[in-house]
């Protein structure tokens, strides 16, 4: 009798909050294998990974911002603006300097710097002027979106043909058939996970998101750490743009539309708390892959009407989060 009552507590518990995103990912992969034999082909896998890289790289930065109790709605517009500016400057430099590698390097440097500066502006206004992150980044979202439309004169900014050919390998080539965006995404994800888990910065983010006052009393430089999360995110937006521009060599008013929401969704699916205090970068990576895989699967089949793509994505997002929250509440 006594054995029967003690047994349940001894059984090793599977922590659903940890495994839920991975289970969802595995289920999606199994569905994909059942639906289409080409799903696991090398080309399809690398396509999905490479297209995940843009939002993935941004979502890594978003994980830090959200963990520290912040939010950034401007990243999609920021990406479009940085891409537009980068193309515009590279085209101008091609005329004056005659193209070549230096122009590309200047373009890359400009993208990284503009991203960093845009992140800094968001961060400094949120921390020093004390504006709510939601409202401030809603404002900058509109500003960057308008700026890129204005830069493009309502049309599309396209990189000159010669530069496009020279820059193209950054998206399409790589090592051993693994293209650069995938490699960069993987490296950044590993660095992000290490930073979150094993550095003072990562722990400070969680501390601030969990309880700002306690963090301040524990001599955490709250404002500076919070500012740094936005600067980091801005820089990662710059890196994402450096990977994005060589793909189609163009930017328009619709570039990066809704990327911010996809990035935030990926972060939350991955198990990071929207109210801050806890974040995990590997979860974010899984979240990004889940979102891309849904789109990929829907394109590989006629199973669902294309009108319902958004609905399927919505259901998966909610399911992934419900699984985690239920287990969290039970404990």
């Amino acid at each position: 009798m006594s054995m029967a009552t003690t047994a349940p507590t001894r059984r090793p518990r599977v922590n659903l909050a940890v495994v839920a995103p991975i289970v969802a990912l595995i289920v999606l992969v199994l569905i994909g294998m059942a639906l289409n034999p080409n799903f696991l082909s090398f080309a399809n896998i690398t396509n999905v990974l490479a297209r995940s890289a843009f939002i993935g790289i941004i979502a890594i930065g978003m994980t830090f911002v959200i963990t520290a109790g912040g939010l950034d709605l401007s990243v999609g517009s920021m990406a479009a603006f940085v891409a537009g500016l980068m193309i515009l400057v590279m085209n101008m430099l091609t005329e004056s300097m005659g193209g070549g590698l230096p122009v590309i390097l200047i373009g890359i440097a400009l993208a990284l710097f503009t991203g960093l500066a845009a992140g800094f502006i968001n961060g400094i206004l949120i921390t020093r002027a004390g504006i709510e992150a939601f409202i401030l980044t809603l404002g900058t979202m509109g500003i960057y979106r308008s700026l890129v439309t204005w830069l493009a004169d309502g049309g599309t900014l396209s990189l000159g043909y010669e530069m496009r050919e020279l820059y193209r390998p950054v998206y399409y080539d790589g090592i051993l058939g693994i293209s650069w965006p995938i490699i960069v995404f993987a490296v950044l994800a590993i660095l992000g996970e290490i930073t979150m888990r094993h550095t003072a910065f990562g722990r400070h983010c969680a501390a601030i998101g969990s309880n700002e006052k306690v963090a301040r009393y524990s001599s955490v430089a709250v404002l500076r750490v919070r500012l740094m999360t936005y600067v980091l995110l801005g820089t990662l937006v710059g890196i994402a743009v450096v990977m994005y521009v060589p793909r189609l060599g163009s930017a328009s008013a619709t570039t990066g539309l809704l990327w911010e929401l996809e990035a935030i969704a990926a972060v939350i699916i991955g198990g990071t708390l929207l109210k801050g205090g806890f974040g995990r970068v590997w979860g974010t990576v899984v979240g990004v892959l889940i979102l891309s895989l849904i789109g990929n699967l829907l394109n590989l089949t006629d199973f669902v009407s294309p009108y319902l793509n958004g609905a399927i994505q919505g259901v998966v997002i909610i399911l992934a989060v419900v699984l985690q929250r239920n287990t969290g509440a039970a404990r």
Partner: protein
Amino acid sequence: MRKTLIATTALMGLTAVPALSETIGISIPAATHGWAGALNFHAERTVARLSEANPDLEFVLTTTSDPGQQVSDLEDMVATRGIDALVVLPFESEPLTGPIQRIADSGVWVTVVDRGLAQEGIENLYVAGDNDSFGRTAGTYFADTLDEGAKVVVMRGIASTVDNERVAGFEAALEGSGIEVLAMDHGNWNRDTAFNLMQDWLSRFPEIDAVWAADDDMAVGALAAIDQAGRTEEMFVVGGAGMKEMVQRIQDGDPTVPVNVTYPPAMISTAIEMTALGLTSGAPMSGEFIIASELITPENAESFYFEDSPY
């Protein structure tokens, strides 16, 4: 250009006696995508041309990014500028019908461009592209060029009446040709979406003979994906709306981009010119003016290339 002018010649209220100064109000959507950008470009160009030719004409040009703002703009035009004629591309049909009707009732000449109002008989002049013909022209080219049993994929735009009419025209033209449509999905008139969609279709189908991208922005995305997969030789891509890079490729005889179909954003110029002409000359201008979609081929591509257009 094949243009159908159905002049109802029922001379409406406005008897155009050249006054000292006539004001034409123009309200169009803001340049949020390539086609609308070109619309703005052509509107500005026409206004500049007409202002120079007719010192008596004044123009008020506003661009809006949502229906609510457009209603406010129209009210402002009537209240503060006392416009004599209005050229409007309604952002959405339903919400704009009432406000435009009130303006028409007050005796202002109304020209509606491209997007029809929810009720008939409000506008004096209707200038529009032909979406059915847009799809049908592309479909006819497919039916003429491809063999029976050929496999095609279709990229649709943002789910809307415009898109439905185009696809219906395309499908009607394919009927009986024996061409198989493998898949149809929404690329939302967006390069990135089209790129991903095409990548996935290339993984899914071992054989594709042609792609109807229904818009040149999507064609750009599709072409990049086909290029990446190294299957350029296998298929051709037909876009639409006559983006200048596409027209350039047709002109150069690129086998992957053999033709294109027009849906000219310059129709705003047609509308403004006709309105101005009606206002200043008294020539009858009321009725409908439908601009058919044309096939751009290597032979005629030159006349569709606008060097300084943003699109």
